[in-house]
Structure formats: C-alpha cells, structure tokens
C-alpha cells in the first residue's frame, strides 16, 4: 500500500512538474534582441502584427545584405527604390519601421532566429531554462511538498482505519474465545461518551496534559500566523479598469518588460506605462484576441482618440490602475538598484508574469522576505569598479573563510537606513 501511495505521489509530482514547466526558454541572442526591438510590431511566426510575421523571411529576401540594410534603417533603404521594400511599405499602411542601432551580426542573429519561427516549443526538462528556470523549480518544490503532505494524510487515514478494523477483529475473537471457554462476561455499565471520556482522561492524565499543551500551542500558532499575515497581501489580484493581459503581451507576444516599464532601469519606480506607450502598437492593433475591441477602446477613450479618423480629442481622462504591489510609505525601494546593479530578473520577485492574465502579487513583500534575499544574494561585483576594492577587502578579511559568499548582507544590506529614511 505504501508503495502504491508512493507511486501516486510520483505520478502527481510528474504531472505538476509538467504543468509548471516553462513553455519556452529564451536565451539565444536573436531571441533577446527580437524581444527588445522587434516584438512590438513583429511576430516570429507567419502571423501579421503591425508588420509582417518574420517566419520564412529569408525566402522573401533572397539578398541578405539588402535585408540587413532594410532592418537597420528602413527609411534610408526605401530611398534606394527597392521594389519589394516599397511594396511592403505601401502594404502596411506606410507605418515606418524605426532605425535600429544594431550590428550586422545582431540583425543576422534575429533573422536566423525568427526565420525558423522563433523558439519551437521547448521540451519540458531541457537544460535550457536559464531565465524562467528559477521560478519553475520553486513551484515544483512547492508542488512536491504539497503532494507529500497529502500522501502523509492519506497514510494516516489508512492507518487509523487499519487500527480500528484490527481492534474490532480482536474484540470479536476475544468474545469467541470467551464463549468457547464458557466465561460469561458481565456487560459493562452503559456510560455516555462524555462520561467515558471523563473516566478515560482521569486515568490518563499525562496524555491529557500533553494533548492540551499541543492544542494550546497549535491555537497560539494559528493566532500568530494570523497576526503575521495582517497587511501581507500575497496573491492580491485586483480587477483592473482595463483587462490588460500580461499573458498575452509578455507571454505570447513576448514584449520585453522594459519596453513598457521603462523606468525600471533608471528609477525607483518601474512605472506603469503612460497611454502613449500603448498607442505605439494600438494605433494599429485595434482588436485583441480576448475581448475584441472592447478593452482596447478604453485606451482610446482615455486618450479621447478616434481610431477611425486617427485624431486626438481634447478631453482625455487618465486611467486609474489599481496598484498591485504596495509597500508601506516608510519603505524606500529602488527598482534600478535591483535590476541594473543587482541584475535581478523581474520574475524573481514578480513571478511568472508572462502567464498571468490578471497580475497578482506573487511575493509576500514582507520585510522578512526582503531580508532573506539580502542574506542569500551575492553582490554582482564582477566588472563593476564600485565593488572591486570592497570585494578585495572582503577576501582579505581575516574572518573570511573558504565558501563565504560576498552577499548583500556583507556590505550592509541588512541595515535599517538602506530602506528606511
């Protein structure tokens, strides 16, 4: 039976692993460049966005040099009078592809990657999970411990049933033996369950004491956990005024986070994009796959924009998004410190945003959670002259032992005035 349960748990774990495994990895240069520069207008498939889908682009542009020139500066290339390019330009409503400061190699990398239709859906457990790997492992671990807990409960229930069955078997056997021996067993006085319990507890004071102690501790723990949870809004998933789906934009369309959250590398705020950023694409994309024109038209309404005439009115109304991640006012958090200097991936704190149709608060955002990360995370000192001497001093410290890690804590990352002032 035990083996059977183990098998179940194994199957469950596998299922969960498959379920939580990342759908795609994106580590190639081509993919990265594509997401940073092209994804807002192109798809790495045959599907059209603002511009044409890029799958099979090589077939359409036999001369690679021309293609590179076109990608790097389309306006200049149009002036050469290339027939195909001009045709494309007309076909896509004369929307201008901006110039890109990319090297030839980078353009080729993008074309190579997009030509084959982007990343084919990756098999579940390839080693190539660089970016979302951390997250998926976490969720697997979470799933594993959950399933083990279920298995334990199952085992416990089965054992209880077993004990009671064995007990009743034992009683019937005793009655049988007694009947055979001719011993008449006097029927016990009939006691109410409460009286029974009282009698039993008076006979087993130690057990009662221990049990009460356990009970009290359990209640206290429940209370403690409850109090610690006050103000922690992990999983907070408010409804937004526009049903913007990160799953669609960041997941399927693979628009880089920084494209919209442009402050993340230079400011304390990642910034909710202003509506004019939406319009970079939605001036052309007027219909979405999930809600048709309904949600997109809310952007137009906010900007007082008429999609037919393409004219902005003079009665715009700001969009009131609901903040998902709220830190108390006495906490200073700076995105650029973590993203630019600390080189932390967005997903580490925000979770698998690219699979969230409605964004939820993934991390608890408690001080303990911050502190833990500061204890464990190694300072990204390589190639940063700010840290060079500091790292040297750390290594030369007499207290330094092999295996010590140059963590954020070591440079004062747990100090109050790093976040509170």
């Amino acid at each position, binding site marked *: 039976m035990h083996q059977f349960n183990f098998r179940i748990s194994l199957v469950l774990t596998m299922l969960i692993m498959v379920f939580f495994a990342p759908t795609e990895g994106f580590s190639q240069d081509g993919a990265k460049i594509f997401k940073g520069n092209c994804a807002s207008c192109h798809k790495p498939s045959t599907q059209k966005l603002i511009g044409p889908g890029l799958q099979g682009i090589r077939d359409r542009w036999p001369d690679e040099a021309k293609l590179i020139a076109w990608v790097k500066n389309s306006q200049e290339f149009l002036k050469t009078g290339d027939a195909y390019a001009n045709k494309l330009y007309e076909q896509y409503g004369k929307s201008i592809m901006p110039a890109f400061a990319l090297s030839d190699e980078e353009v080729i990398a993008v074309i190579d990657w997009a030509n084959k239709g982007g990343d084919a859906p990756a098999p579940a457990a390839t080693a190539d999970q660089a970016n979302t790997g951390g997250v998926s492992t976490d969720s697997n671990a979470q799933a594993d411990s959950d399933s083990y807990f279920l298995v334990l409960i199952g085992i416990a229930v089965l054992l209880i049933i077993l004990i009671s069955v064995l007990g009743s078997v034992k009683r019937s056997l005793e009655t049988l033996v007694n009947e055979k021996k001719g011993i008449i067993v006097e029927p016990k006085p009939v006691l109410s369950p409460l009286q029974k319990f009282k009698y039993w507890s008076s006979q087993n004071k130690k057990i009662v004491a221990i049990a009460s102690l356990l009970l009290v501790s359990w209640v206290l723990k429940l209370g403690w956990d409850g109090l610690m949870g006050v103000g922690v809004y992990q999983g907070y998933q408010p409804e937004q005024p526009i049903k913007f789906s990160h799953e669609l934009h960041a997941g399927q369309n693979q628009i880089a986070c920084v494209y919209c959250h442009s402050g993340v590398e230079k400011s304390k705020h990642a910034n909710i994009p*202003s509506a004019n950023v939406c319009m970079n694409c939605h001036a052309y994309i007027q219909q979405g796959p999930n809600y048709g024109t309904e949600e997109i038209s809310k952007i137009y309404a906010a900007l007082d924009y008429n999609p037919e005439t393409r004219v902005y009115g003079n009665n715009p109304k700001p969009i009131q998004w609901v903040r998902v991640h709220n830190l108390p006012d006495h906490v200073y958090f700076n995105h650029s410190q973590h993203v630019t200097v600390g080189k932390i991936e967005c997903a580490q704190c925000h979770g698998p945003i690219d699979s969230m149709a409605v964004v939820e608060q993934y991390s608890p955002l408690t001080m303990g959670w911050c502190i833990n990360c500061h204890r464990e995370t190694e300072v990204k000192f390589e190639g940063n002259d700010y840290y060079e001497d500091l790292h040297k001093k750390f290594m030369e410290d007499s207290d330094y032992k092999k295996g010590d890690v140059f963590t954020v804590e070591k440079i004062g990352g747990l100090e109050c005035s*790093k976040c509170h*002032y």
Partner: protein
Amino acid sequence: MSTTKKYWKGIEELQETPEFLNLQQNEFAEELPVDEFLGDENLVDSSTNRRDFLKFLGFSVTAASLAACETPVRKAIPYLNKPEEITPGVANYYASTHWDGMDFASILVKTREGRPIKVDGNELCPITQGGSNARVQASVLSLYDSSRIAGPMKAGAEISWEAADKEIIEKLTAAANQGKGIRILTSTVISPSLKAAIENFATAYSTTKVVTYDSFSYKGIAEANKAYFGKAIIPTYSFDKADYIVSIGCDFLANWLSPVEHARQYASTRRVSAEKKTMSRHIQIESVLSVTGSNADKRIAVKPSQIGIAAVSLYNKLTGSSLPTKSLDGKDDSISKIAKELKNYTGKALVVCGSNDPEIQKIVIAINQYLGSYSTTIHTDITDNTHKGNEEEVNSLIEEMNSGNISALLIHGCNPVYSLPFGDKFKAALSKVDLSVSFSDRADETASACSIIAPDSHFLESWSDANPRTGYFSLGQPTIQPLFKSRQVLSSLLKWSGAELDAHDFIASVWENTVYPSTSSLKSFSDFWQKSLHDGVVIINSAQEDMNEVSIPEAVDLNKAAGIISAEAAKSTGTELVVYTKTGMGDGSQANNPWLQELPDPISKVTWDNYVMMNLDEMMEKGFNTILGQEQKSDTVEVKLGDKAVVLPVLAQPGMPKGVIAIALGYGRTAAGKTADGVGANVAGFIQYKNGYFHYNVSGVSVSESKGKYSLAATQTHHTMMGRQIVKETTLEEYKKDAKAGNEDILFATNLKTIGKDGKATAKELNLWDSFENKNHFWNMSIDLNSCIGCGACVIGCSSENNVPVVGKDEVRRSREMHWMRIDRYYSSDMNEEVAESEGIGAIDKFLKMEVPSSDDVEVVFQPVMCQHCNHAPCETVCPVLATTHSLEGLNQMTYNRCIGTRYCANNCPYKVRRFNWFRYNENAQFDFNMYEDLGKMVLNPDVTVRSRGVMEKCSMCVQRIQEGKLKSKKNGERPKDGSIKTACQQACPTNAITFGDFNDTESEVRKAWNNERKYQLLEEVGTQPSVFYLTKVRNKNAEEA
C-alpha cells in the same frame, strides 16, 4: 500604637447631618442625567430591543474588522502622454533665477514629478557661486502658499481675466487719451524683458511713467557716487581681494546689497590652513549686533548717531585732514588704531558703510579713494543694478495722486501701504486714483486697497530674465504650471499694451536683439537660447568705463558733508532706534512662509516675533526681565515717536550701547496670510523720511514700560559656554606660531603605564569598545568655524530637504522645535576660571557670572550642531528596540518605524540633537502650517518619510542623497567622486563652511580637513568619537586685543 486622629471631609460629616447621611448612601451626589444621554423620548416605544442592538453591534464590529482585513485599494495613475524628460521617481533640475526685490540668486530648482521641491544656488553663477541664503532656500515654500489668491479680483470678488483686461485696457486708454497720468510703481526692475515690456506699455499709453521703490533703500550710496562720478551707480565689491575690511554699520554678510556673494568672498579670505596662514582683518563699527558684526575680529559699538562721526574721524585720522567732527564717546582711540593699521593696506583695504545718508557715503568714498580701493576692491565698471529705488519719487507720487492728476497706478513687486513709513498716506492717496492695479499674489495691505488685483505668478511658475550687474545675465524658466489663475506681470503688461505675445517668446526676442549679439561663441540663436536655458547664466564682456582715476571733484565738499553729519549727530536726543532687517524675514515680503518665521534669528535665537533689543545693563537698571526661558515672560515696552507707537517685548541684547534700541522690519503684517498676520509689530512707520532719503537710524524715541508680559520663543536660552571648550578659538598670531593653538589635546590622567610617559591619555586612546573598520565608505563631515557666519541658510536647506515640520511658536517656547540642525551662538563672558581665582569668587557666583555676556566689546561665535554621528554613540546603546543603530558606513541610523518613543536616546545624547515628535505635525489642524494643507504638502521630498507622532528623529546626514549618489556610481561602475554627494546643509551654505565626504577616499576634502591641525571633535572627552568634526575658529586679533 494606633492613632486616634480623625479626619473628616467637611463640617457635614463631622456633624452627621441628615443630608450627609442620605448622600452617603448614594454613589453619586446628584442623580445622573440618564435621560440626557439616552436622549430620545420615544425610546420606550421603539421596536428596537436590546437583542437587536446587540445584533447590530455584533454585525458592525464584524464588518469593520472584515473591512480592515481587506487590501486597501491604492490607485496608480500614470501620465496619459508622458513628457520625454520626466521619469517618475527621478528628479529633474532646472536652472532659473530668484529675484524678489531683495535677494538676487541664480538658482537650480529640483523638481519631482513636475513639482519644484528644492531651491539651491547655481554653481555656474559667478556672483553667488552656488551659494544661497535662508530667504532663497525658503522661496520654494512660498510657491505653495494657500493665501495666494485664486485669480484676478475686483472689490474683493473674483473676476475673470477677460473682464479684468477689458476694464483695465478701457481705463488706461481713457487715461492716456485725457492726458492723465499713468504710473507704474515697481521695485527695482532688473529684467531686461520686463523693462522692454514697460517701454512697450509706455508707447501704448503715452502718459506712463515708472516710479521705482525698494523697501530697503540704497539711494544714499547711489547719490554719493553720483556726486563723485556723475552717475548714480552702486558699485560692486570684492571682499575676497580685501585684506583689511572696515564696515561701518553695514551688515554685508546677511542683508546688504548682495549678501550671498559677499559671504562667499569674505569666507575665502578667512579660511586658514597649513598652506595659507593669512586671513583678512575685519573691523565692525556698529550699533546693533549684526551677523556681520558677530564675525568681526574687532567690533566697536557706537550709537547710531555716531556712525557718521566714526566715518569722519576715520577719514581725519587716516588722511590727517581736519574735517569738522565730534568726539566718539571714548572710542576715538580705537578709530586711531584702525587708521594706523589701515595705512599699511593701501590697495588691499575696503571700507563699506550701510547708512543711507549720502553725506556719510561721500566720506566713505573719500576714505576708499585715499586707500586706493577703487578698481581693486571696489568696481565702478561693473555696477550693481539691483537697488535703484528712489523714495523721493515715491513721495512726489503721493502728492501727484492726491492732486488728482493720476488716474491709473500699477503696483508691482512692492507693498507700499505696509512698508512705507507713510503707508497710511499712500493708502489714502490710493483712493483718489481711478484705476489702481496691484500685481500682488495675495490681497495684501496694498492690494486690498487697490481696485483690481491682477495676480502675478510665482517666479517658479514664470519665465524671467535678469541683468543684476554689468555683463551678467540670468534666465529664469517655469518649473510648474501656474497653480492658480495667475499671470506673470510681463504677460499682463504685454497684453494691455496690445501685444499678443507669450512671455517666453517675448523674452527670447529681447535676448535675440540684446544679449545674443554680444556673444560670439555660438552659431545660431536657438543654440544660444538652448545653452542659456540649460546653464541659466550668460556672461558677456561689456565692462563700462572704469572711474577709478577720477579724483575728488570740486562738487564734493567734504567739509560741508562732515559739517552736516556733525550737526545731525548733535541733534540726537533721547533713545536712539535702529530699524533693521533680519536675516530670515528680510523686508517681510515672505512673511507668510512658516519656515522663515520659525528660523531662529542668528543673533537673538528668537523665532516667530520681532522685539525691542536693548542693552543688558540698561534693562537691569529699568527692572526689566533679562532672562529668556520657557516660564520667564518678557516685559513689554511702548516705543513711541511722534504719533507712531508700538508695543513689543524687550530683549536683552549684548553688544548694544546704552540708550539704543533696535527693532526688526518685516513683522506686523495684517494681510499676508494666516501664518504672518498678527506676528510682531510693523515698525516701518519709524523710518524717517528726510531730504529725500529714508533714514533707518532714528533718535528722540521714547521707551516706556507698558506693564505687559509676553512670551518670546527662543531656541537658545543660555548664552555662554560657561568655561567649557565647546567652540575652540585662537588668534591668527598664535595660530602662526603653533597650528594647534587653541586646540591642545585634552589629556586624562590614568593609571595605565602603557600610555604615554606619565599615564596621560587622550579620550580616543581610552576606549571600552572593539575597534571597527568601515570597509566601504566612511562618511564624515567637517565644519570650519572660521567660515561659518551663522546665517541659517543651512537650517532652511535641511528643513526643505528632510521634511522637517514647522511646530509653531508655542511649541518652540517649550523647546520642542524640530530643526535637525541648530546654530549655537555663544557670547564671550568677562568671567573665567582665572579671574574667579584671582578675585576669590566662589563656585556658584563664578558660574552665575559666567552666564552673563561681556558688557562691552562682546565677542560672538557660531557653531552649527547636528547629529554628530558618533562612532561610539551613546544613543545606540540605550535604545530598547534597536531603532537607532550604526551602519557600516559610519552613519548613526534612525529607524522611525521601529521607534516606540521612549526618548532614552535623546536623554543620553550629549549633543542634544535628537528631536521628538510630541504631536503629529502633519495633517493636524493644531499645526496649521504647510504640512496641514494639500497645497503645502506638495513641497515635501518624496524620498524622505514624513514622521508621525511618538517617534524620534534627527539628522540622517541626508542618507537619501548618499544612497542616490552611491546608486549613480554603481550604475556607472565607479567609486563616487569626492563632492558628487552633498548634504543639504553643505549645498545651502554660502561660505562653504561645511565639507562632507568619504573619509576612506584619501584624496577627499573631508580627509584633508581631518588632517588639519585645527580639527577637533565636540565634547571629545566624552569619548563618542563623532564623524562630524570642527575646525578651530581663528580671529585676526593683534597682540593687545588678544
């Protein structure tokens, strides 16, 4: 043995009256008025029974607690169309110009998400060189003043701009057509564009004339220069080139002409180091102890009427002439000595005088000419254009108004009803003018008497330009959209003169035609305009004729001038009064600014009031209370001159001669707004208008007891160092001999054989704690007491940067001011250990006498004190919740969200720099200052927490700036450069007295300061090892003075 004594509550109990016995049975003496609080008479008929009540109660409690568990919904509202240059969370800086009729400064405005939150000096400006003063620092709060009016007003009611424009244009046209006078009454216009706009206006309305009026007049200097050089100019001064400075009643460091510039120049001559062991010598001859006087090497106190005599005597002694003069009440010897010393400083001396009397100024010019100061320390080729007010024109304007010849008057940049000595006459005359328009941003004393108020925008909402002196231009740009329906004066004048031009375009066109042709470096005007906007300043080479070669012309009869001066001095009777301007309040135009109201006056340390300053001994003779304290109320006196009288508290001020009193201008506003109204009394009425000049020194004043008591709120109530070495001081001669003079190590006798020869050790060597290495940064601050002039700009800078609340007069009186830094001011005392010993004075008497400042020739030292960031901090060890801790970078951190308010730390702090939030100062109607209003809260720095009630706070060494600077360096992959991170106080300081930096950076300025022999730490003997240290004060005293 038990006592048989019986205690009874009253005669009723003793006699056991029936009423008493009856009452004894009841719990309450009277029947409780249950009906009153149950109230409703129909309660009995109500169908709501007790159970229902409990149900409702239960439901509401549950609902409330459930609601509390829900996530609070916070909105995030992004821009619809984000301006390219704005990144939310990152500050933008714009170069602009501050000019309010009193202080000129090229400034850098820090904005966050489109709101200006901090004003600092622009380092590209050759005048201020990045310095600023308290009034400039505080000007950002005046922007968010809720007393500003919402739009144009007529007869107390709001009207639209269209209606106002229509009426004004109609009346102006009618006036011009009828040939009736139109006058523009304005403070000095230094804006070339505004000048051009006024010219346009005068072309459109031919009867227009401009009358210039400054609240504080410099006409005397201009007229004296006119007598000499033929042109009414105010020259510019180079205090940095002067090795010997004599100031006769001139507060050039805090109030006179261009104080920020003077302070910076002056400090550069006062700094001494191993490389430069010289400094200027500064003599101050004055009546009232001023900021400048308190920094002098030698100060000579004379009566106001003798200021002129002092100048004449100096001239006589210097040149050997014998102009008519009088004796100087025993100070003649001092003047002789100065004259003797001055002779050795030809070409390196500077004599300045603050008087508005042209005769005295003529003598001063003669002295400077004799000393060869012209074109070395005084420049007539570069003139100061900031003060061209002419009170004579104002006086004749009133006559014209009364005669009915003026039918339109536009008033800009001044408040004559309040600030003129004959303000009531002006107000009366105003009613005879058909159209009176005020450009004031509020319905102030003058504006409320005008027919229309056309509110000017704040300078942070406007385009502006300035030409404060020859060859120097400064450009101002708006940093926020106008908060109210205001319109800048330039636009209003353009509109009324029929030119539909926007202020920006107009200024650009003026610059294209005037400033741009004088520059040659840039190829197109648009390039030039962009660069000028970015830099904020433009310097063109356009020196005027240098007049140094001009000899004393015949027209200047010094004998006559000296005769007039002596005759005036002889007329002086009774008590003499000096009307002066305070460093914080100035002329009172920013009186509604709570930061300035709460800034302690550098000298008296009193906030929120003006008062009568009087000689200490005289006060004792008259029986006035001389002690300032929480429970010691000041006596009030009535000061009377003719029909003008004010009642004000009287304050003992060392350094004033007997028979002299002084009162500050700028108080007693009646229509400035809720903060300013009713604070102090207006003494503009005491200014004497004589022969076309305002005289700020007045004689014949009577001072009489008015039997009142008044509480003054001072931040410092003890005035001397009581024999301790808090400020270390030496003289230049001593310093030259031994760089450690005045800063000798304090040695403690120990029984340790290991230390020194005889077991004597310094505090640093005696240490209970383990040593600790600051591996990364080690933030240190050095304060040069020789540069600090005590002006208080840093205090406002700090309040502005760190969201320090204003607490109001009553709380300051209770010593609950919240300023993170204070500037301690100490007077010298005649009593010291040696004197006590030789005279056999006992300990108690000795200390009592030590607290009394020197009666004559008092010396003053200033010492800015903020959290010393002790490396062995006494506060840290006593905090029960670790709310105050030490960082690896040497900062003493204060964590508000951890603090439970035991105040142990404040009690254990030897420097008394910790401030406790006794109340919630924000959003609290009891503290109705800027943090109570939505508008005022816009000035808050979003990077600094607004503290709540019950927590301790203190200087953080601007940790938010440190963190910002470090982050910037990390992003660039480099170590922070020395000087790239500045604290707010350092940035505000006009004299560069404060240096901040990383001690671990061996090349840093602060490290160099640490190695200076003058370095000492405050209360070193306590063993706290602070990260803030001071450099000894050095005075340039000669041997007999020392």
